[in-house]
């Protein structure tokens, strides 16, 4: 016997949570307009989407957020600290790749500094992940050691029923258990057959990639220039990436009053590493693309023992010039295998 949640009861579940003061967010919209937004009823959500264009990370690490207000007077300096609200949220219908990214980024945001902005939102949110039934040609979670039904970073895992009328419910964390207890009256015990998770082909050998990247001789390889020759240096791949987490701190206002904000930033930008002197240690797009790949598949693993990629495929799916992590890693894996043979 398993716990089942039928689609027809979902609006009642949303109502129960909302009654407790929780905000319910779900994937809505189509294509480029899709993302996670607040919903009241189940019909507003779009569970047919393979993946939203913008990622789950926006709900924890917004594009821009105020940190501090300041006003310098004649006699005193006034400051005001802005902290995100701790209102509870249910995020219903995330994908395994997006949820896993949250767990990956937890390590970074709790490393040399405990990032309150991130963790306040993490601790007040319950993530319900729905296992995928169908991949598209860009999906590559299995190449990163994950799967379409991975529970990493999720509080509750939902497996779609074969009939398409609901999900089998598997609580993962205490937060998940607690959220489920609020909707207990809408859950059923049963034995509905669950749909097989999506079959996502493995696209590259990650171990081979790690070895090639760890070889210091390859840092100056002409490969970096060749693979990124057509890169136009926009931030599309980094901003649509569920794990990319770099930010910039900007003061908006003037010397006497203003707001200090935390804004997304991207290693693809020329300005990202520009020194005041005008010298840029990553002067070319090839050096910037190398940084992105090295950060994800070498440095991050070295520090936190996990790669900073979940295989969602957005970088390739949305690149204006048809680049992305997949092709780069496929080429790197082939290079490593070739060097092992010779």
């Amino acid at each position, binding site marked *: 016997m398993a716990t089942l949640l039928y689609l027809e009861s979902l609006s009642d579940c949303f109502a129960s949570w909302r009654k407790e003061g929780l905000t319910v967010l779900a994937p809505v919209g189509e294509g*480029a307009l899709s993302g996670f937004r607040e919903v009241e009823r189940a019909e507003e959500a779009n569970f047919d989407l393979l993946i939203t264009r913008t990622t789950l990370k926006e709900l924890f690490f917004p594009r*821009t957020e105020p940190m501090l207000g300041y006003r310098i007077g004649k006699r005193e300096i006034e400051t005001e600290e802005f902290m995100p609200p701790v209102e509870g949220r249910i995020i219903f219908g995330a994908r395994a790749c997006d949820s896993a990214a949250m767990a990956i980024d937890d390590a970074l945001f709790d490393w040399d500094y405990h990032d309150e902005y991130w963790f306040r939102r993490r601790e007040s949110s319950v993530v319900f992940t729905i296992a995928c039934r169908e991949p598209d040609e*860009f999906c590559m979670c299995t190449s990163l050691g994950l799967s379409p039904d991975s529970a990493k970073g999720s509080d509750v895992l939902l497996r779609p029923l074969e009939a398409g009328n609901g999900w089998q419910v598997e609580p993962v964390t205490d937060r998940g258990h607690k959220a489920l207890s609020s909707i207990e009256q809408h859950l059923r015990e049963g034995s509905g057959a669950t749909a097989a998770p999506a079959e996502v082909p493995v696209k590259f050998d990650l171990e081979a990639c790690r070895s090639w990247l760890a070889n210091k001789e390859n840092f100056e390889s002409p490969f970096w220039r060749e693979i990124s020759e*057509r890169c*136009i240096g926009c*931030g*599309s791949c980094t901003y649509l990436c569920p794990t990319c987490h770099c930010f910039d701190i900007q003061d*908006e206002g003037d010397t006497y009053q203003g707001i200090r904000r935390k804004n997304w930033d991207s290693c693809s930008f020329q300005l990202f590493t520009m020194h005041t002197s005008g010298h840029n240690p990553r002067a070319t797009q090839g050096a910037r693309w190398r940084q992105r790949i090295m950060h994800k598949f070498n440095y991050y693993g070295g520090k936190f023992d996990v790669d900073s990629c979940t295989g969602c495929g957005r970088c390739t799916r*949305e690149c204006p010039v048809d680049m992305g992590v997949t092709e780069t890693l496929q080429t790197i894996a082939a290079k490593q295998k070739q060097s092992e043979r010779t």
Partner: protein
Amino acid sequence: MSLQEHYRSQARELLAAGAVKMVVGYAEGTTPERRRPVFITEPEECSRLVLDARCRTNLAGYLLREGLLSDGREIAVYLSTEGVRTINILAAESQLSSAQVRILGFEIDRDEVKAMEGKRAADFSEAILAHKERRKKQAPDELAAKLEAMNAAERFTFWQGEFSRCIKCYACRQACPMCWCRRCVVDNNQPQWVNTSSHTLGNLEWNLVRAFHLAGRCVECGNCGRACPVDIPLHLLNRKMTGEVLEAFDHYPGMDEHQEPALASFRKDDPETFIL
């Protein structure tokens, strides 16, 4: 021989003879529907060059890659009429010398790709003139017509909604061959002229600054709209500005490389009293 084959062999000959050092064209992409920019330097690699109705990207911007043309050598590049006009504007704005650009011209008519005869930008003036005449008569598309019918407040609301999706990835700028500033105004941070934050004001500032900067310069190649990951209909803004400049000054950007920029030139006999 198909145009694809014809241009492949031309590219091969140009490279083999040393007439050009590189061919910038299109190759197959990750999926059968995709085409990607490719940079060919060896004659034997020319079989990778593809040309069909899916080749939409305006490649002219790649020529401005730092140092690429600094050795004075020629580069061959696949260009449609919009691409050729881009070369004219870039030459007029002193960003390149059109003598270094060997053109492999093509036009996409519905699903067919057709040859455009000519080698240098100056050879395409008739085709460009025909485009100008067609542009003058062109009716706005459905969404543009809807926007025209709105009052100012409604239009402002529409654009605020569209810009609210902007994530400030600057894909529009990076994909635009006209955005050649070595340091964009938004990247100037001492002082910070334009907010970098992706909030309502910051997004409005960015997208409007870019639209103004392209007035009378945009060739309507569509690179910006195709690059935008959140599908903001940026082309509508640029089309509107192009239409205004065309109507007010009979200025169609990129007619030839001596054309003065509409918003960076003046005449002493201008009827407007504020000029001089």
